[in-house]
């Protein structure tokens, strides 16, 4: 349980959470083992929750509209995937496939949702983290749009 708590504490979304809530979340997490070739998540399918890799390696692959599949990343121990899927269960934008035997800590979105319903203060602590992330992304987007516009003027 202590190991689960330590892994959860490293998830940015939970960085502001009181220890007792992290403990509560650790209790509803489950450990799952995937064989090489197993899909942890499938592109287009609803996200089932958050995955923290305990050991092993996975590849993140994306299938384009033309049907071609491209590997976009590899993830290993400590990496977190589907962080925001615990909140909205949004359809996955890529597939994640185990490259070798991989053990993950999984926090299912339905478990998480039941947990925050019982402890709405958790939602209050998570809210600023997501808002900050939105602000950062929005600022990068605005800056990039600006650069593109300037680039257009010069050419």
């Amino acid at each position, binding site marked *: 349980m202590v190991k689960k708590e330590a892994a959860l504490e490293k998830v940015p979304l939970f960085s502001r959470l009181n220890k007792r809530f992290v403990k509560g979340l650790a209790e509803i997490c489950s450990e799952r083992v995937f064989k090489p070739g197993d899909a942890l998540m499938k592109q287009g399918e609803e996200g089932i929750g958050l995955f923290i890799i305990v050991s092993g390696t996975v590849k993140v692959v994306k299938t384009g509209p033309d049907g071609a599949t491209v590997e976009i990343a590899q993830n290993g121990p400590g990496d977190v995937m589907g962080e*925001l899927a615990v*909140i*909205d269960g*949004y359809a996955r934008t890529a597939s994640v496939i185990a490259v070798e035997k991989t053990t993950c800590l999984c926090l299912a979105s339905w478990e998480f949702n039941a947990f*925050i*319903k019982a402890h*709405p*203060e958790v*939602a*209050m602590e*998570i*809210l*600023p983290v*997501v*808002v*900050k*992330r*939105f*602000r950062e*992304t*929005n*600022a*990068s*987007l*605005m800056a*990039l*749009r600006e650069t*593109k516009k300037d680039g257009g003027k010069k050419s």
Partner: protein
Amino acid sequence: MNKEEMLSKVGLFAGLNRKYVKALAAVCAEREFKKGDYLMKQDESGIGLFIIIEGSVRVVKTDSSGNEVEVGHNGSGDIMGEMTVLDGASRSASVIAESPTTCLILASWEFNSFLKVHPEVALDVLPFVVKKFRETNEALVGLKNAT
């Protein structure tokens, strides 16, 4: 349109139970601005959410070289500073009234004390913020890939 109806049009509050919208309407204030008045000033911390009831404003941004660029116009029904109620972040642009303008204002400190009393409201607001983040992130990734 009454305050409650105006607030229910705000995306951030779309998931809220009617009783909460009603309570938020009670802590909103109506303010009038004369032509030329600043509703918000770039780089100053945001005081909250503005809904234009009547009038028109222009959104002006001063860039790093000191040039003022007009980035938009807003009018009746438009919402500004929506996310500011959540974080009071400093404004990325100034907003100036170009005609006599009346706004409904929900101050971020009012919203924060409301949230403290009703933490369950955070549950209903969270998915909207996540959605906004996803949309922005998608646009960013798309734009990066286009380079």
